[in-house]
């Protein structure tokens, strides 16, 4: 302790250091490399050279505009669905869970014990044309005689909703759980019905959780490709699918890199608009 005591002003740097170093090595450096790649031209066989090829960005937007829009659309719908489904669930666990709270939370996290890919493959089986869900829906007439779920946008959005559900439910639970029950009693004491007390007290106080959950769901969902690949048809493919195939199959690194940056920019714009709409102070609680 002697050293730290003498150099107390160094302590913040020692605490920040490891994390910053890690991010610098594994985030900033690769990102810089990716930026460099995005401005290269050439192909895998003849090699790539740095030519300030801004055209890559133009091509990405021009050729894959539909994929970008679809990605934001699917991610947006899945985020809203996850919010709608998990808010009542998180609310119930936080206020009525009692001694079952921890067990119920474990159920929310339980899917993480199985890998992402396997979970999505399981959904492929569940939604398959011969699967139980489709046959029931066909019998009751919600789906036509040869209607299907697999390879539709519904399946992709459902898969994303499911896979990112815990990222929404957990922050919601945390912010709801912190709300002092006496505040709701106080609201009822001041002539607010249960519903009014929810609208005026519980909901605003849980907004930091809503914002955190929304961002944690929307951001990775917009870049996802597993769900579209396994549960969707090519017409449901998202920009993640394109980036993945450009990088790994077509080895068109400049195109893939520039698309990654366009996606990043699109997400940042959406998040900025969202933060503006809900008020930035909600981001920090």
């Amino acid at each position: 302790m002697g050293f730290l005591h003498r150099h107390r002003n160094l302590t913040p740097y020692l605490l920040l250091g490891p994390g910053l170093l890690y991010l610098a090595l594994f985030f900033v450096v690769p990102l810089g490399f990716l930026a460099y790649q995005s401005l290269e031209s050439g192909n895998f066989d003849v090699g790539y050279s740095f030519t300030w090829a801004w055209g890559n960005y133009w091509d990405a937007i021009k050729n894959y505009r539909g994929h970008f829009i679809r990605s934001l659309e699917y991610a947006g719908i899945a985020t809203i669905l996850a919010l709608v489904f998990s808010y009542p669930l998180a609310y119930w666990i936080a206020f009525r869970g009692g001694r079952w709270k921890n067990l119920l939370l474990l159920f929310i996290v339980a899917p993480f014990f199985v890998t992402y890919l396997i979970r999505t493959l399981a959904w492929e089986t569940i939604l398959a044309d011969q699967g139980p869900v489709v046959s029931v829906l066909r019998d009751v007439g919600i789906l036509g005689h040869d209607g299907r779920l697999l390879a539709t946008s519904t399946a992709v959005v459902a898969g994303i909703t499911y896979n990112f559900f815990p990222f929404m439910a957990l922050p919601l639970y945390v912010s709801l759980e912190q709300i002092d029950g006496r505040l709701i009693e106080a609201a009822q004491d001041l002539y607010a019905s249960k519903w009014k007390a929810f609208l005026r007290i519980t909901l605003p106080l849980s907004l930091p959780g809503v914002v955190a959950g929304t961002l944690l769901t929307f951001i990775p969902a917009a870049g996802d490709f597993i769900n579209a690949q396994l549960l969707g048809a090519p017409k449901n493919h998202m920009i993640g699918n394109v980036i993945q195939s450009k990088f790994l199959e077509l080895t068109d690194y400049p195109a893939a890199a520039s698309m990654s940056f366009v996606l990043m920019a699109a997400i940042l714009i959406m998040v900025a608009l969202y933060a503006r709409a809900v008020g930035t102070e909600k981001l920090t609680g």
Partner: protein
Amino acid sequence: MTVGENGNPDVRLVDVTKRFDDVVAVDRLSLEIEHGSFYALLGPSGCGKTTTLRMIGGFEQPTEGEIYLGDAEVSSLPAYKRDVNTVFQSYALFPHLSIFENVAFGLRRRSIRGQTLTGQVNEILRLVGLEGMGKRKPSQLSGGQQQRVALARALVNKPRVLLLDEPLGALDLKLRKQMQLELKGIQHDIDITFVHVTHDQEEAMTMADKIAVMNHGRIEQLGTPTELYETPATAFVAGFLGVSNLIPGTVSSSDTVQLRRGPEVRVRPEALQGRTGEVAVGIRPEKIALGEGQSNTLDGTIVEEAYVGVATQYIVETACGRLTVYRQNASPGLNGASPGQRLTLSWSPDSTFVVDSLEGPE
């Protein structure tokens, strides 16, 4: 909302029982609280005082019995439909709302808007001494100021009854004393019935004009602070309100008690209230004189002396056990009674009370 102007008490509980599973928190409790009174429910933790308050507020439903506000039976009405407001123990201010919006919360729920709303909120903020603080958030205020916001938020609605659940518990001693007097003043000015729950006998005695001392879910004794202090009905009340010396004895005539290991002492016949057999005689420490002079006497030896400013406290060993005696330090340099000294204690029959048994609190 204007029921009960025909002389009915503001709050009336009839045989109210509250059970939580097997635990009886409140046991066939009946009470009446007159309009405009400052009524304290006083007792140790677990005596049922908070549960009683929560049933009046609508946060708990009685298992049995009836609760009246004015002449309306309300035990099945939810809290938000009762003309009652609460100052919560922890204040329970809404952290995301400004002071103004906290205070305006109840008025907005009752569709009061515009100038009327602003006027009423600012007026009540002025009353509690928080003028101009409306734009701040609760976290920017001190504990004492938060307490005032909680009070303003309840009072602005001009309820029939204001419930206060240990409202001063979180404040330091000096501020608490100050707020006790302020609360009493505010209550006097606005003419609203206050029901106050506390475990602090001094706080109850300072503020309330009626105190119900509760124990095990029932009212042990109901009375003014003076009645409770001067003539406690039970050993529990005698012990809970201030210090008292209780000496066991047997009733020997209509105005005497034979102390078990001491002389016979005189009491007022009213104090006996027809009791016979085993009783306990009680004397408050400040009513015992060091030296002869009063008709009841007891010999003893001083074993401890403690100067506490306003008075000096003596512990005196007697044949009937150790007695506590206070002598007021009315003038400096009173010739000292000191440990080891033998003397006679004396007190008047008029300041002697009698209780049933010696089953007091710890």
